């Protein structure tokens, strides 16, 4: 928009041109002063390590001082395609995302709609729902491990003794088939509050008279949600979705802290497997290669999303 304004200004009367160009210079100078400190930090501590990591992915990289690293071309990438655990961790990463992101968003939306109906005490409820977000991963992961223990864990106690929906305790963390579930539950539970707070803020900006008008027209609550709330919240929902998807594909801590990839490395995700290869076997080249494949995947996906969700005029 700025450019457009400047451009149109430039086509105006010539006497102003000189002043404008000096203003432009001034703007450029100011711009660099504004971005320089942040940009410098970003370049040195963030971008440079990423580029370096990209370089490492083409080497059999030795981190021991004094040992040589060998250039291996695409070997690390090819290896990832053949490694069954790498494929499995890719699948687990996708599964985690496909399950926890919609889970978080649906539950967060329900919670936001509910809390939006409350008068007094809404702030307290909001804090309660937000508590999981602000508690350390380390602690909640320990807790979840304990809750999902078998046979004598809290979840089994609920299912077998209280609700009586299953006969025998489930060995959550002992079988590859079920060990992902505690991770998914943890990821969802810990994230609900974050999305909810954002949705709730969005809901408060929707003018009440819209609902009242709809109510007079006899629209049911489902209809109101679908035709008023959701369209108006759409940008917020899209934003949350993009952020959660990135977060979901970057899943690391819940896996490392709850199952550490086990049993049998069946719950590894890309980043946990990369960390395992890098820091347990010092295979930094392989680790980097895997994480870059993931990064490329995420970037492509994100751009597709942005194309898909944003209105054409919003694409920049």
């Amino acid at each position, binding site marked *: 928009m700025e450019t457009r304004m400047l451009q149109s200004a430039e086509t105006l009367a010539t006497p102003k041109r000189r002043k404008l160009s000096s203003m432009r210079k*001034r703007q450029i100078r100011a711009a660099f002063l504004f971005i320089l400190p*942040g*940009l410098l930090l970003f370049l040195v501590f963030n971008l440079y390590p990423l580029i370096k990591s990209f370089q490492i992915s083409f080497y059999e990289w030795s*981190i021991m001082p004094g040992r040589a690293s060998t250039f291996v071309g695409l070997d690390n990438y090819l290896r990832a395609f053949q490694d069954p655990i790498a494929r499995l961790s890719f699948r687990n990463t996708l599964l985690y995302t496909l399950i926890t992101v919609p889970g978080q968003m649906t539950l967060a939306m329900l919670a936001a709609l509910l809390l939006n109906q409350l008068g007094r005490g809404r702030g307290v409820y909001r804090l309660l729902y937000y508590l999981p977000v602000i508690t350390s991963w380390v*602690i909640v992961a320990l*807790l979840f491990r304990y809750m999902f223990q078998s046979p004598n864990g809290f979840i089994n106690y609920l299912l077998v003794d209280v609700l009586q929906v299953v006969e025998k305790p489930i060995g959550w963390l002992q079988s590859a088939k079920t060990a992902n579930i505690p991770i998914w539950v943890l990821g969802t539970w810990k994230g609900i509050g974050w999305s909810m707070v954002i949705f709730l803020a969005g809901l408060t900006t929707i003018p009440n008279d819209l609902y009242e008008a709809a109510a007079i027209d006899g629209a049911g609550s489902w209809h109101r949600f679908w035709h008023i709330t959701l369209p108006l919240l759409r940008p917020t929902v899209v934003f949350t979705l993009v952020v959660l998807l990135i977060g979901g594909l970057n899943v690391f801590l819940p896996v490392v802290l709850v199952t550490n990839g086990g049993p049998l490395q069946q719950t590894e995700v890309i980043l946990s497997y990369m960390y395992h290869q890098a820091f347990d076997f010092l295979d930094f080249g392989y680790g980097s290669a895997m994480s870059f494949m993931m*990064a490329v995947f995420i970037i492509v996906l994100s751009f597709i999303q942005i194309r898909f969700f944003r209105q054409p005029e919003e694409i920049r």
Partner: protein
Amino acid sequence: MVQFASRRKLLSFMYYLLATLGAAVMILPFVWMVSTSFKEHAFVIEFPPRLIPANPTLSNFEQAWTANNFQLYFRNSLLVAVTSTLLVVLLSAMMAYAFARFEFPGKELIFFIILLVLFVPNLIGIIPQFLLAKTLNLRNSLIGLVFFYVSGSIPFNTFLLRGFFEALPKELEEAVLIDGGSYFTIFSRMVLPLSKPALATVAIFSFLGFWDEYVQSLTFIDDPLKRTLPVAIASFHGQHGTEWGLVFAASLIAIVPVVLVYISLQRYFTGGLTTGAFKG
């Protein structure tokens, strides 16, 4: 009419009931934590869980607070999280403002790169980051952690704030400029005060992230005196037996600062979360 009013009352009651049920599920693990933290010498988490401990005691809190350098770790975490939050809010705001308002060569490219990095998991760079920290003598240094934390969250926060600044009306700013004011006066006197909600939002999210950060702190810091809380608390969890009451008491103390930050800044939440990037 009376019927209508009582129906509303009933409805409102239902809402509160549902909200309370939901809250109960959300905080269930905490309740468990809290009740265990009041039990003395708890090497085993009681099963089935008992909410009110038989002989409640504050000794775990006392012991956690006074033992094992806990206060030092607490100070370390506080120092790192507060410094990083202040820095990241300031630097991201400056960058975001430049991207929102100024026209300068390379703008698109730089912003594109920042956006790209935003999508890439931070963890990928941890190995070179580690080597960099060593070269720059930032290993075992809380300042080093600050640098990594700040740089790591600049992309997201710049992206958020840029959207917010773009939504601010710029007529006033132009007026100041024509009156001979500098960009810095505009930024510090007008833009920042107007953006309190957005800045508060960024501050809450960032502070929480820094306070909870685990992997980088674990990887970069060897010196036990420079440990941060999550790493310290994780190490309370012993290889042979864990005194759960102590671990949970320590974790509950660790939540306090985040709750305080949240409560003191939450009134800005609504404003901060409904403009700019959150709106798409």
